[in-house]
């Protein structure tokens, strides 16, 4: 349960007064940030740490959220306008074209401006975005998207399951490996199992078997 002070709950319980507004922040992997609300407003931003960010009045419709008691992923959806622009292009469509929003960080606050307090927060990632002649819809999944995370994450294989350059890998080379032993520049950390010897054979093989060169293969459990 989230609790609020009387300075927040008092105006909420009273009749009349202003309603809360939405503050939606989006931050793409490329570093582009967007701020939207129902009204044009200057307010602090969480994702960029900006004390005074300009939120454009693009939010239409009603933001919707679904939260679960289980490990099911929370969801959210926002609808924005796709009407503003010039005689040729529309702002939202241009943004949609120029930026990759899939996976972008999203932070939503239901903002009580008078109390400078958020009544409801949602943090997650953009899961999908659709655009039509008048609207631009973002569907988001919450931070607790456990079903999208592989666990256990590693396979026992001739290929190494580690991500090149991660702390577990420890490689300082400028040349990425292809997860094989031959291309590994941090062999103390190599996590593939290169050779399997077995004594199951009862007879000496008639063919001289040499260690084959490690083959290039894809370890599907390799985490990115």
């Amino acid at each position: 349960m989230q609790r609020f002070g009387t300075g927040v709950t008092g105006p909420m319980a009273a009749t009349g007064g202003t309603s809360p507004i939405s503050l939606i922040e989006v931050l793409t992997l490329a570093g582009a940030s967007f701020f939207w609300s129902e009204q044009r407003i200057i307010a602090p931003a969480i994702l960029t740490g900006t004390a005074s960010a300009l939120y454009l009045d693009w939010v239409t419709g009603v933001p919707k959220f679904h939260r679960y008691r289980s490990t099911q992923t929370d969801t959210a959806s926002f609808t924005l306008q796709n009407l503003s622009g010039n005689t040729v292009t529309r702002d939202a469509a241009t943004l949609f074209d120029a930026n990759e929003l899939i996976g972008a960080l999203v932070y939503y606050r239901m903002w009580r401006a008078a109390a400078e307090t958020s009544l409801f927060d949602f943090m997650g990632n953009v899961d999908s975005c659709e655009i039509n002649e008048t609207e631009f819809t973002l569907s988001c999944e919450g931070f607790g998207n456990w079903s999208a995370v592989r666990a256990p994450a590693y396979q026992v294989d001739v290929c190494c399951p580690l991500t090149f350059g991660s702390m577990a890998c420890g490689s300082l080379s400028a040349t990425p490996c292809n997860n094989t032993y031959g291309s590994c520049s941090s062999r103390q950390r190599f996590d593939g199992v290169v050779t399997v010897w077995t004594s199951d054979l009862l007879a000496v093989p008639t063919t001289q078997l040499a260690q084959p060169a490690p083959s290039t293969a894809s370890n599907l459990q390799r985490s990115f």
Partner: protein
Amino acid sequence: MALNPAFQSQGTRTLPLAFGYVQGTGDRVLDYTAPDGSLYWLYLLGEGEWDGPEQYSIGPSQHLYSAGKVAGNPLLGPAVWAQALHFHSGAYTPAGLPASAISPGPDQSYDPWFSAFPTVTPLQAFSGMAYYMVAGGPSVLRTITVPLPKPPGAALLPYVEPPSAPIAVWRTTRCRQFDAGGNVIGYGFTTNPTWHFIEATLRYKIKPQQPSIAGLTDAERACFHWQSIVDHAARNEAVQPNGLPRFIGSYLFAANATLTAVQELILRCCRSFQRLSGGRRIELVGDDPRAAVFFFGANHLLPGSLSIAKRNVSKAANVYVPKYRDLEIPAIAAVTTAVAGSAASPQPYSGGGNAITTLTLNSNNPFGSLALVSYGGGANPALNGQYFAGNEDIDGNGGLIALPGNVLRLQGHAAGVSTGAQTTGGFIGTQDSRFSERAPVTVQHRAHQRAVGQQAPGIAPQPRLVPVEYDCGNSTYDQTNRLMRFECIRNLGPDPGPATGTSWRAPFEGSVTGFLEAVDAQGNALVGVEPGDVIHLDDWVTPEFAGDFEVMDLDVTGPAADGSGAASLGTVKLNLLEVIPEAFVEVSDPPGDSYATVPGAELAMGTTHALDTNRPNTAWVLRATMSVSGSPSAITVAIPDLQLQLLGHATPTSYPGFHVTGLTAGQTYVLYLDDPTGAGLATFGYQAGSLPLTTYPAGRYVVYAGPIAVL
């Protein structure tokens, strides 16, 4: 024997993730018979670090023996297996580690038995993976006597019996423990599901592929509701009258899955749920009785939105079956009397040396031959313990122990028990039967079975049983019984019994929608209600169904930008389930004869917050490329790229100035640094010889242990 073993490529298989106690052999990836007949096997266990073997057996001809660590030698592991088993815990191998750095474990240097393999086998340290090697045969020398219960004075033999099918009970993943500020306060083996949940979440979502002893950055710390986590850990750790923690967890995940599957099993085993507090911080909540946080009145209600119904349980399961492996020892026979003997009067036994304890059973002796026997539950708890029955001719010195009728003579003598000490009662069982597979059907809702079993007029209702199985990992009867009764009562309501069932009814569920800015008389805001919270519907909202309901999930709709619609000010829709206080079961049903276990024979449960006294200063050496210079009798070793991950620090610490002088080429040393504050300002030193260090002051970390290269 195969002198030219063939190379075989291997199929892919998942490297397991495990928490708590598991029993198993591991994944054999290397198997080689040397020309002299010595045998070497390597088994991968799982993602490191694991704490080590609790009990071990080389195969069906031996039993699961427990053993302690070698005193004063923190890195050699259990004494009894030092000559036949090398366990490596699964830390990171230092980058830059020389090939000469060999160690029998538990660190992650190269295992010395690798030298037995053909040189075409590349030297591997399996960084980050817990694994063990076993060996036997002429070249593998026994150096340490097998401890009790074998009679003392056994002669040392050079030959170590090769393993046939090794199996062990493992203490698996070491987990970080945190305080309410999100700071690492401990690291070690634990059966507390709280720390399992946090460790899994950190490893796969927040901090993947980073040392599992690292602390958190501020941003990482902000992802968790730490007070709830600390409270949840304490709740699980609370000791019950049976001496065990309230909730324990032991499980192994060995199939490709998602973090959801891992979390769900962990949460199920401790009757808990998780949610995002404030939409962004991971919070753990125990499913225990809790007070309502919002009192829902008529003035909060969106008109026409209340919908209450009975749960549709017509096809619901009414037999709740936990599937688990029993961490306790099944009781095989009951004991009538037990009498402790002595070395001087060993009773009719000619084996010599050890005292004999005599048990009179209520049945014939169940052991046909040798066995490790656990006795517990007698009136005198001093006689509880592990004994040996039969002839375990490990080194050729054993003698036959007669096992007549219902009298069981056990070799061994509980410490501190005087000769002739007697007790009555109790049970016996064998260590090897731990981890038996169980699926008790003791949790049944008999009223529901009869209610759905009505056939036709004049025919008595026949109970219709619908089972459902729950995976509970490795657990105990007590815990799984409490968990299943919780699920049963929560889903179907209290069971008045099979007599008539007329007083039974299904739980209520439904939904109600309130205004976004609703505030109750206590000043609680509806928008602050979170999944899992309990709200109270007062009788102005619903006279028939007033009471406490749990929020299973909720929909929040923000205010309409254009102010249109009846709900233009925003709404909160709550999907509800009736709270049934009887579901929070704290006392399990009696196990009866089928599921009785030997009291006092439990494995150690709970959490060891304190670091291992043999490893008081936990750090991983991440990088150490040694540079050796000087004359053979005055070697200087410098490690300009030295980098350590200290326990609880968010990032590694570099020590580029590491150097020690005055070493002799080819000799073995332990190089260390002293950094009491962990700020990277350190002094450096060395100790001639092998581990352990003579002293471990705070902030002393081992950098390298092994021979110094010859110039």
